[in-house]
Each structure stands twice: as C-alpha cells, then as structure tokens.
C-alpha cells in the first residue's frame, strides 16, 4: 500500500520541476541585471544605474557577459518549453477574447492548455529577440569583436541592439505584471505548485491532463 498523501499536498499540482524553477530564476535575475546595465547606457537619465555595477566602465565590461549568461540559460529553459508554446487555433480565439482576459472574465475565454496565447507570444518574442541581441551585441562588442566588422554594420548593430532590447524589455514588463496579477503564478515558479482551482481556472486543458497524470511537471 502506498503511503498516504500528506495533507498539504492533496489539492496541489506540481507545475514546474525544480530544475525548471532554478533555470527560470537564473534567467530572471541575469535578465534584470542585463536590462539595468543596458538601460544605464541607453539613456543619460539612467546612467546612475551604472553605480549598481561598480561604475560606467564596469557596466560596459559586465553587460555583454551577463548577456551570455542569459543566452545560455534561456537556451536550456526555452528548449524545455518549446513544445508547449506552439501556437494553435484556439490561441487565436483566446487572443480575440483578450478584453475578457484583461477584465478577469475567464469564463468567456476558450480553454487553455499548459500556456495561454499571451504566454506563448511572450515566449516567441523572447525566442526572436535574444538571438538578435546576441548577434547585434557581438557586432558592437568593442573589446573583442567590433574591429572585425565594417563601420556601417556596427552602426546598424547599435540600432538593432537598442530597438530589440526595447521590445524585449516591454515584453518582460508585461510578463512580470501578468505573474503578479494572476495570483498563484509566482508560487508556481517558486514552490513549483499550483492549486487545483488555479489550474482549473487558468489552464483547464492542462489541469485535466495533469490530474490524470498525463502532464507531468516540466
């Protein structure tokens, strides 16, 4: 006979495996550092942020290496999440009901699998933006690489880097807000678990698979 399930675990589903949670927070912390160091050099009004990194020169030195940490860490995380983020027909129907989503009227919204269309779009924005930031970042990385590129390409690299970073930061601001707004989401990424009600309300198709044991934590 299997041991009895502990009381506190009874109404919970494990949504994220420990390795995923650790991976996510490595990406999250390094991305915040990356964005802060990047914004410090993006606009003079934010140059004071260089103080967080030990001054302007240290910010210039550290920023690209932090970027490499984000790239590698997200590559591992993204590979795990890739399959669950494929856009399907129901995602477009979900997006059409976005007003209901934003107004917390989820009863009017098509049922959602492990990720909703908003989460999937954020995922694909990251997947597109990070390689662009890596490539443009290498072109403008003066200490090691910029000398190998023609000047027009460096100018384009700076422009692309700034614009793509802007898009990505917007996406992450939305991602963070959504996680704060939808109560229980942060717990999913810290303790790994969600309540039955949370899974039922926000990710009903995944909830049904999960309670049947067909959708193990990832």
């Amino acid at each position, binding site marked *: 006979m299997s041991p009895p399930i502990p009381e506190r675990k009874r*109404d919970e589903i494990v949504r994220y495996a420990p390795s995923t949670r650790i991976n996510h927070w490595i990406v999250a912390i390094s991305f915040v550092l990356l964005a802060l160091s990047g*914004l410090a*050099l*993006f*606009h*003079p*009004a*934010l*140059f004071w942020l*260089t103080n967080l990194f030990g*001054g*302007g*020169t240290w*910010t*210039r030195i550290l920023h690209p290496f932090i970027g490499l940490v984000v790239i590698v860490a997200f590559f591992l995380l993204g590979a795990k999440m890739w399959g669950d983020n494929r856009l399907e027909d129901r995602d477009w129907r979900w997006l059409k009901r976005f007003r209901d989503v*934003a*107004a*917390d009227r989820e009863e009017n919204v098509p049922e959602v699998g492990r990720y909703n269309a908003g989460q999937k779009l954020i995922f694909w924005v990251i997947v597109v933006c990070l390689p662009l930031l890596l490539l443009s970042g290498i072109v*403008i990385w*003066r*200490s090691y690489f*910029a000398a190998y590129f023609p*000047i*027009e390409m*460096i*100018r*384009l690299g*700076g*422009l692309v880097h*700034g*614009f793509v970073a*802007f898009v990505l*930061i*917007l996406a992450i*601001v*939305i991602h963070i*807000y959504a996680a*704060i*707004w*939808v*109560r*229980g989401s942060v717990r999913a990424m810290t303790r790994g678990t969600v*309540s*039955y*009600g*949370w*899974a*039922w*309300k*926000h990710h009903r198709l995944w*909830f*049904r698979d999960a*309670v*049947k044991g067909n959708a193990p934590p990832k």
Partner: protein
Amino acid sequence: MALQSLDIVRRSATTLPEPEVRRAHTGEVAKLIDVTKCIGCKACQVACMEWNDLRDEIGTCTGHYDNPADLSDQSWTLMRFTEYENPKGDLEWLIRKDGCMHCADPGCLKACPAPGAIVQYANGIVDFHEENCIGCGYCIAGCPFNIPRISKNDRKAYKCTLCSDRVSVGLEPACVKTCPTGAIVFGTKDDMKQHAAERIEDLKSRGFDNAGLYDPAGVGGTHVMYVLHHADQPQLYANLPDQPKISAMVGLWKGATKPLALFAIVATALAGFLHYIGIGANETSEADEAEARREIEDMS
C-alpha cells in the same frame, strides 16, 4: 582634461544645457591645413608626439609613405599620401594631414553614452575626457571621419585634442607651431576662412580651377579645415568623405527614439499598475477550487 579657461558648451550623455553665460565672443577657433603647401615632412606628427607625450610602437614598412600605417591611441595625427594621376597624365602627390576635424556637430559626442566623456568647448574644440570614458567605442560608430581609436591598454578612446591645453593659455597647437612651410595655420574660424579664400584665389590663378575650402556643412562645419586643389573631389585625398554627415542610423539610435522608448517602458509598467488598481488581483476563488474538485470526482 577639464580646463577652467575653456568653457564647455556641450557634454556627451547629458540632458540639460551647460552653463552658457560665457561664450566665445572673439570667435571660434579653427586650424586650416593647406594641403597644397604641405611637403609631407611629418614634423606635425613629431610635434604632436612631443607635446602630448605619445610614443607609438615602431611598425613595419607597408610599402607606402604613411608612417605609422594608421591613426592610433598614440598617433593622433597622420600624413596620408596619395599618388594621383590627373587627367593630363601628370602625377600629383596629394598629402593630407589626417586627424580629428572638430565638427561643429560632433557624431562622437552624440553617440557617447558616458556623461562628460566627450565635450565641446565654446571655441569649437571637441575634446575627450578619458577619466569619464567607459571604453564602449560608440564614438567610433558616431564619427563620420574614422578618427577615435581605443587604447589596447586602458580601453579608453583617444584622438587629437586640437591642443586644447595649449589653446587655453593662448598658444597655437603644436603641429601649427612646428610646420616649416606654413601649411598649417591657426586662428579664429573667420580669419582662417579669409586666409583660405586668398589661397584659393592664388591656386585658381595657377590653373587649379576647382581649388576650394573643405568645411563640410553636413556636420555643421568643422574646426579643422582643408584647402584642397581639387575641392570637387575630396575623396582623392585618401578618401576624405565628400559630404560627411552623422549616419542616419546613429541619428535614429541616439535621437528622439530614446526618450520615446523610455517613456513607452514606463507607460507599460504604469498601465499594469492602473490595471491592477482598476480590476484588482486575479484570484482563484473557493468556487474555482470546488469546480476543480467536482471535475476530478466526475473523472473517477
């Protein structure tokens, strides 16, 4: 180096105006390089090394007269030699003293993200303050003349200062002082233009119909100007840009888009906050938990 006797009118990466009561009422300065009088002796290069205490590495012969082969953090000026065969079939030896042009609208200053690393004085000189330089190299992308060079040792950017330290105490730049043919002269920009006009008239009378002054308007004019025998073809002179201007990409990258982008990021965060205030947290209710449990019971 910050010099009290020179008033700063623009600093890189700052959003507010500099103290601007004191101005260069006696006129902005300019260095005029008369390419037609240059004999390529490189005394200006030596004077620059001596005054600024610079010693470049001894290079190797690259098969032409340019020595060193390029500008560097230790070589702030360089004679560039071009052998040009004119339409009559005669050889013309075009020797251009290359170095910072001290643009009125400096691309380096515009591109620089470090406050006060690049400044423009009221007299027009554009100077790098290396103590504020973070070594990102954006000035290189901003410059239409390919002038700034990053030191391999301290990773900071260097270029000709127009001897701002000498000018601040009433001396002419070292290269001007040493030039044995008077090809390099220094004074107010108006005086230099007048001097150039006389030289151009003389050149035209000697058959150089296209002689002219190089003071490109695309960068707002420069505080280093050339008298050229072929002002219609500046690219003959070791690729001196015909109509230099700050790249449109640098303009986009560094222009109005930045405050707009910053505004958009703040607005998005604010929209989230207001949404939260308006709608409240998206919570899972007891009813949701009950529905979930009912579904599980139905399944089994």
